[in-house]
């Protein structure tokens, strides 16, 4: 069974962390992943940096730009991750925009992911119809779960459709906006989380965008399986470097 599916069966709220690979320094990737696992993180989204990240706010844009100027490439990221499964057991997901993956070659990309032990992909700008028609069979051949997003604007019909083609979890974007743009959840979000929970979808939901501390983590997971933190963790890396990751995870989990 894919590590993502296994993890989703655990009887707990899941904490997933996103960071841009190659940030703050080119070769921090592996040590950040290991530290996150050691400190109780359940799942990691490794951001493949892109020059034009349309769905991201300033924090992730800047970490992406820095990672690229540090010299990060798809090839280098895969090199860094080569031995990762010798000591990391939690699910690893690569999150990236479609163009770098297309240029690398979608099949070659998926194949390398499998060899390394990547469990899933999140590609925000790969449309569902294109995925189904052209790439689904490739992803499945290499055992990769493709994670789809829903937002407060997604229609009920489309949510049901996305649920029907998903295998793993649904990435629930907390509010209308790019990453890092909200501070605290209001009733509107809670109502939305509950509304989706009441749909009794076959796939669990994990909330992302706007989670930055214990309070928002607790709110986000009241009706869902877990939460994803990106910008807040990157801000922590910017301020504190990579040596005090436990301070960050403790501030979320306790």
């Amino acid at each position, binding site marked *: 069974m894919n590590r993502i599916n296994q993890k989703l069966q655990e009887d707990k709220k899941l904490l997933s962390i996103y960071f841009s690979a190659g940030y703050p320094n080119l070769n921090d990737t592996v040590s950040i992943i290991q530290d996150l696992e050691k400190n109780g993180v359940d799942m990691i989204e490794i951001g493949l940096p892109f020059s034009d990240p349309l769905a991201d706010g300033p924090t992730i844009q800047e970490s992406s730009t820095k990672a690229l100027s540090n010299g990060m490439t798809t090839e280098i990221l895969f090199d860094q991750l080569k031995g990762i499964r010798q000591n990391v057991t939690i699910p690893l997901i690569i999150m990236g925009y479609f*163009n770098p993956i297309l240029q690398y070659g979608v099949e070659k990309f998926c194949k390398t992911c499998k060899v390394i032990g990547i469990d899933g992909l999140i590609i925000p700008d790969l449309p569902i119809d294109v995925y189904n028609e052209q790439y689904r069979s490739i992803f499945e051949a290499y055992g990769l779960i493709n994670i789809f997003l829903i*937002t407060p604007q997604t229609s009920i019909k489309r949510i049901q459709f996305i649920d029907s083609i998903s295998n793993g979890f649904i990435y629930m974007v907390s509010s209308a906006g*790019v990453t890092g743009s909200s501070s605290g959840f209001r009733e509107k979000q809670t109502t939305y989380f509950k509304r989706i929970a009441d749909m009794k979808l076959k796939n669990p939901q994990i909330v992302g965008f706007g989670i930055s501390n214990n309070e928002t983590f607790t709110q986000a997971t009241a009706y869902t399986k877990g939460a994803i933190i990106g910008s807040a963790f990157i801000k922590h890396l910017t301020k504190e470097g990579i040596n005090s990751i436990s301070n960050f995870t403790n501030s979320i989990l306790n």
Partner: protein
Amino acid sequence: MGYNINEKGYYGEFGGAYIPEMLYPNIEELQLNYLQIMAEPSFKAEFDQLLKDYVGRPSPLYFAKRLSKKYNTKIYLKREDLNHTGAHKINNTIGQILMAQRLGKTRIIAETGAGQHGVATATVCALMNMKCIIYMGEIDIARQAPNVARMKMLGAEVRPALSGSRTLKDATNEAIRDWINNPVDTHYIIGSVVGPHPYPDMVARFQAVISEEIQWQLKNKEGTTKPNYVIACVGGGSNAAGAFYHYLEDINVNLIAVEAAGKGINSGKSAATSVLGREGIIHGSKTLLMQTNDGQITEPYSISAGLDYPGVGPMHAHLYTSGRAEFISITDDEAMTAGLELSQLEGIIPAIETSHSLAIFNHKQFKTDDIIVINLSGRGDKDLQNYIDYFKI
């Protein structure tokens, strides 16, 4: 029928809507409604009326006598420079503001490079009393100051794009992010035939008035609707799409797209996307774009801010790879020289974007009885300082 868009939103293998889910409701709303709205008699009537009384259409098709004599062929200029606000861009913004009204939107966002599209958008927002926010790269704000002032005077807010390379591509990113942040009340008026489907087709249809007029104007002057050549400069490709539109399927009409070579194709400072680009995804569209081997989008260069875009509309990517249109790249120097030449031969100071298409005559020999239509996409007022600096006038 091979060069226009298909029912799935592609020109050949190019186009589509490669957008994050956050944009799906807005894009789907447009996809489902744009053709129907454009076909409504009341929409058409209002669009035509505004093009006539407000923009000043039809724009003249002018026989350029001295230019024709110099190059020993028959050259007509389609005078989009005489439109209100000085370029073809307003054909599209008039259409899209009416579209936004029909969709019940109250807030307009747009990106701009040279500022022409920003001015055209700010203008129609003033006309229709809509809130208007224009994203413009910090670097472009500095090099196109007169247009920034015009936008502000028209009541628009100009927001600097501070990310990435701080030019047109980044202004477009910021506009898309704004739309993600404001999914309900906002319409995004894209300024060229780029972006996710249906934008390339919608913008091409609004600009198609250019070739529609060329047909009957040429018929009156030459007794034929068909020129031998239609020539236009290509940034994103909207003025070219408009000038080519009614001739796309008529292979007896040769189409020439002129791109900006900047300081030269191999100089590392160029914006000739068809030659230097590879297939990929930019701003929600599968097309040709300038990028690194690793798929990072690179920064183009051209002396003209309006041609300084690392991609090209999917229609043009298809016209290029299918061979339907000939693509020629013109350097900064060639364009500037051609701009000065038109000024002194015909008394028309063209936009630097347009000057690129006028430089064609030093690249290509035409027959004496060839009928050539050049789309004079804009006037040079906004570029005066650049011309002055370049020629030390």
